């Protein structure tokens, strides 16, 4: 896939404001990382949508397989005792 005549694909992550996580916003093609940042600026932050950008070559990302969704995520479903709402606390008990 890595044809040297083509600009590779990058995934773009933008931090909207200081204190927030970087969030995936989309992808773009660029010749190198520097150009990817510049294109991401033009493409995804034309209206002050961000204060920081990450770009990552798409092929560097390893993702979970949608076919394994059940085996990966189902086991958490019946472990409701991991949530605070599982526990009945008498009304008289405060600040708990």
């Amino acid at each position, binding site marked *: 896939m890595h044809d040297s005549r083509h600009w590779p694909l990058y995934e773009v992550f933008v931090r909207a404001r200081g204190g927030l996580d970087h969030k995936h916003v989309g992808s773009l093609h660029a010749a190198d990382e520097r150009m990817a940042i510049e294109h991401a600026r033009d493409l995804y932050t034309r209206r002050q949508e961000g204060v920081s950008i990450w770009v990552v070559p*798409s092929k560097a990302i390893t993702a979970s397989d949608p076919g394994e969704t059940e085996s990966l995520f189902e086991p958490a479903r019946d472990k409701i005792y991991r949530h605070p709402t599982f526990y009945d606390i008498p009304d008289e008990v405060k600040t708990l």
Partner: protein
Amino acid sequence: MYTQELDVRGADPAPAADPGVLEQHFLARVDAEQKIEPKEWMPARYRSMLIRQISQHAHSEIVGMLPEGNWITRAPTLRRKAILIAKVQDEAGHGAYLYSAAETLGVSRDELIDQLLSGRAKYSSIFNYPTTTWADVGAIGWLVDGAAIMNQIPLCRCSYGPYARAMVRICREESFHQRQGFDLMLHLARGTAEQKAMAQDALNRWWWPALMMFGPPDASSTHSGESQRWKIKRISNDELRQKFVDFTVPQAKFLGLALPDPLLRWNETQQRHEFGPIDWNEFEQVLKGNGPCNAERLAARREAHAEGAWVREAAIVHAEKQRLRAARQAA
């Protein structure tokens, strides 16, 4: 192992998986309003329908820069010029979001651009009309972008995740396009008699092509059935067209301009506007390539692509050189 590289199509599921079962599972997810994501199983027809629709949409954004770009150097004030540049830049961005969304379906950017430049791909027929006066910039923003928004808002809920997400971003930006167009028309309509006449003339020329943007009447629309079943298209062409007319009539009245349709009238019982017949023959002709600017638009895109070739190649060579230099210094 999976890579996230979205322009590489995911491997087909294990041969043991029964296509009937996979399709049932897919339809159940669509019915439950869940989003389908790139690497998941989907019917081949769903994939090809999306590639066709999203890439046509992307091409429309890119070709759509041409009629308005025509006026950037001749905008009457610096303010209008800055607005128009921002709008045309947005269209380029919309094209880029949409090409990216199409690529997640396993088709390459180069393939899509080649389809456009070779004339095999379609784009919205509206961009094959010329922009002969400054008022056309206003009419396009108000009517063409207005019609586009009407078409695009339901697509924000489309079943394919990357397309829906691109549409959310696009709709947010389109609203500025429509409002600046209306604002431009309002200034002309309240200006000198000559300016008002120019606005009226633009409205006369863009009204019918704008109504055609919603596509053929429901009775003869070929792709609608499957598209609605798969929740790509949610509202029919005629319903959207009707809504557009109902929204636009009072806006034209506010501008003091007349819509060029002698049959247009309010139907009290049906609570909607009736409007005259659309010239579908004209629509077919423009779609077939015989519109006023089809040849000119494609020629402009081909020229831009050819003249940019050295830049694309130089950027790759430069990037490679930088990589080698960094590697040598590290050694």
